[in-house]
């Protein structure tokens, strides 16, 4: 049981098959992330969780932990780059926190606060993105989509439905749904599906619950995202 890695000078144990992210979360070390969710197959697309391993940058959510890795995580340089990536996610979509139902429960917003993002920095793209309100119980607002594919993974791997997918390429990548009409109402998505509740932003939300928890009492209103996610990881391992 001598399996250990070192993150920012701290020695951390890991088990065979764990990624750097897994080991870090289990040991109470926060690595900022958006497309990663411990419940799903790692994806590695947002790149926020990039760490420096023996001098090379890798996505910690997909990189297996290997004995002796020397890892830099919470450094000014990496955090500045993570902030830039978060700013990129803000400007490529249309994110209006003040009137978004998800405000306070949104991982994108929370990560931005965590990384001290004070402005979008880059020019907004103001893309024309479609809102799909066709489904009686679920709203799909592509303006808020960060292409993390958590809904794609949840629908495919947990719900067994494959309701969501990506189409397009590059900056024109877009979330599409599994119906000839292209409308959510014509898919078999249900409000109880994992895919309906997994979105880290406000792109997929269950209707009529947007303000059931008032602003001020929401997940990130009083706690930093690092605290919330580490507590969740602790709870998860406690159950095991």
């Amino acid at each position: 049981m001598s399996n250990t890695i070192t993150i920012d000078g701290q020695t951390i144990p890991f088990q065979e098959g764990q990624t750097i992210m897994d080991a870090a979360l289990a040991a109470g070390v926060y690595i900022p992330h958006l497309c990663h969710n411990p419940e799903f197959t790692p994806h590695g697309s947002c790149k926020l969780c990039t760490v420096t391993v023996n001098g090379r940058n890798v996505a910690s959510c997909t990189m297996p932990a290997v004995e002796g890795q020397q890892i830099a995580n919470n450094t000014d340089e990496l955090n500045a780059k993570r902030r830039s990536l978060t700013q990129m996610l803000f400007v490529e979509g249309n994110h209006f926190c003040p009137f978004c139902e998800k405000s306070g429960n949104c991982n994108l917003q929370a990560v931005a606060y965590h990384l001290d993002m004070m402005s979008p920095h880059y020019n907004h793209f103001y893309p024309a993105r479609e809102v799909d309100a066709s489904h009686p119980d679920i709203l799909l607002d592509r303006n808020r989509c960060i292409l993390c594919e958590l809904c794609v993974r949840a629908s495919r791997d947990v719900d067994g439905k494959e309701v969501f997918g990506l189409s397009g390429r590059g900056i024109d990548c877009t979330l599409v749904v599994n119906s000839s009409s292209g409308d959510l109402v014509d898919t078999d998505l249900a409000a109880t599906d994992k895919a309906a509740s997994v979105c880290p932003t406000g792109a997929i939300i269950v209707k009529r619950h947007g303000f059931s928890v008032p602003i001020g009492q929401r997940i990130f209103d009083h706690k930093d995202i690092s605290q919330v996610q580490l507590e969740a990881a602790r709870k998860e391992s406690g159950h095991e």
Partner: protein
Amino acid sequence: MSQCDSPDLSLKLAPIFQKHGRDPTKVLQILREVQDTAHCICGQSIDLIAEHLNLPRVRVAGVAGFYSFLAGGQACGEYRVLFSDNITDHMLGKAELMDYFSKKLWLEPGKVSEDGLVSVDSTSCTGMCDQGPAALVNGMPLTNLDENCLDLICELIRSRKPVAEWPPMLFEVQDNILRKDVLLGEAFEPGAALKATLARGARETWTEMDKSNLRGRGGAGFKTASKWSFCHAAIAEEEGHVVCDIGDRAERIMVCNADEGEPGTFKDRVLLNSYADLVFEGMTVGARVVGAWRGFLYLRGEYSYLLDKLEGVLQRRREQGLLGKNILGEQGFDFDIEIHLGAGAYICGEESALIESLEGKRGRPRNRPPFPVTHGYLGYPTVVDNVETFACAAKIALHGGEWFAGMGTAQSAGTKILSISGDCERRGIYEYPFGTTIRQILKDCGAEDPYAVQVSGPSGTTISWKEFDRKIAFEDLATAGAFMIFKRGRDLFQMARNFSHFFAHESCGFCTPCRVGTTLMQRIMDKIDGGHGTASDLEEMKNLGQLLKTMSHCGLGTSAANPVLDTLNKFPDIYEQKLKALAFEPAFDLDGALATARRITGRDDKEAHLGAES
């Protein structure tokens, strides 16, 4: 009216479905043929394909939306003319010619004519830089375009003559081989390298490959023998490498990467056109060494005109006993090669994206580890090598490793085929021993007053006239083969801007830094080009460049900023002379924002512009 709307679509698609069966890895091949038949991929076709292959519709739609030639849900004309957009095409008048052609046909680029007859657009480099300006019409290559050619093409389109009946001289593609060395110079007898391999033994052939020090010719330069050994558990174990756990998946796959998408590169086109036996033989030698039964040639969509010819070569080789069961009479030596066509996606040149594409998916680079050599095509251990690498492998099997290692430099054995284009008298294919200087190459191809060379394409290195004593070699200037020459007086800013558009267009969109960063870069370059750039934009591009280099998922992202960073570093004046002399310049272009209003009102007079009085 697009033919897509016809009610008998399923009848029309039936032969395509029949040809490809129900194998889900054939999605991309089916979509390609549907596009060719119906000139678009409409929702109904996607329904039919999904039903036929028993795939979720969303997956088929995802593939259809990824590849440029599939055009997603957008229709294109019965005649689809795509002008090659590389900087070398621009230097030969691409923009003016495309404009001339569009006006002649009363067309707006990117739109289909009212009668659905024709559409005109740009496409990434078609690999004809030595005979540009180039274009594709319904997948067939057009070279050396000029106004006369385009007049004729207009007539042919208007008279609705099928492309197959157009004068063949329009589609003439020259090899333009101007310097031959060991690969291109000597005649090759099909089967000779395989006979030598069988006589020597598979393990011993691997040893020769190892001795040869052959490194991959696609640019990255990984040692070929090592890659092959990783794929072969037994050799890996003997060599002390990590042994791949293939479990019950004993099958191995040999893939030839002919997705020659790097703008300015066209040597694989020539190798496949005139040296296909050498390439296929190299693949078969590799198959013998690693124990592969299946091979693929991933041919870029732009080269689909070579398909019939290559299928012919494969068929002949089967008849000669050089492919198929019991090759050359050797019991149990079974190997065959299938050709898989790409559909306009540069990213598929990245080996794991190529494998995804082979599986009929969106060309998205995979997370690594695991690496393709242990978990590649459908999870099987897979070797992916460049066209030229396989050609070298065949020669090594024939002549031995020491012979090969004796050429070139210490770390770069053998020769390198260069695709030379741009400002020189003799554009074409040149094979040089590694270690040759840029100066020598420029002299040989007749470059007058050269100022800069883009080595290895947009993802490579921009070198200035001060660096012409540098050498083509992995230890100095590594190259996949592109060599674009710019004479004094050329606007290198336009080169860098062209490349920034290329990367933004070709980014797969998977990771944040590349998806957004390449677009930001392109927008800043356009802003500077429009006369609105400031010093802070240059700083911003340097920061973006660092972000792309250090945070991207794959090589496309990490190299996407190279042309901008290199030119900022070596030719700062090309930027500075374009900057506004103001300390502050609004990011928002007020006058530009009125462009739509001007178009709607049909006005373009002075009064319709802001700040026109100044």
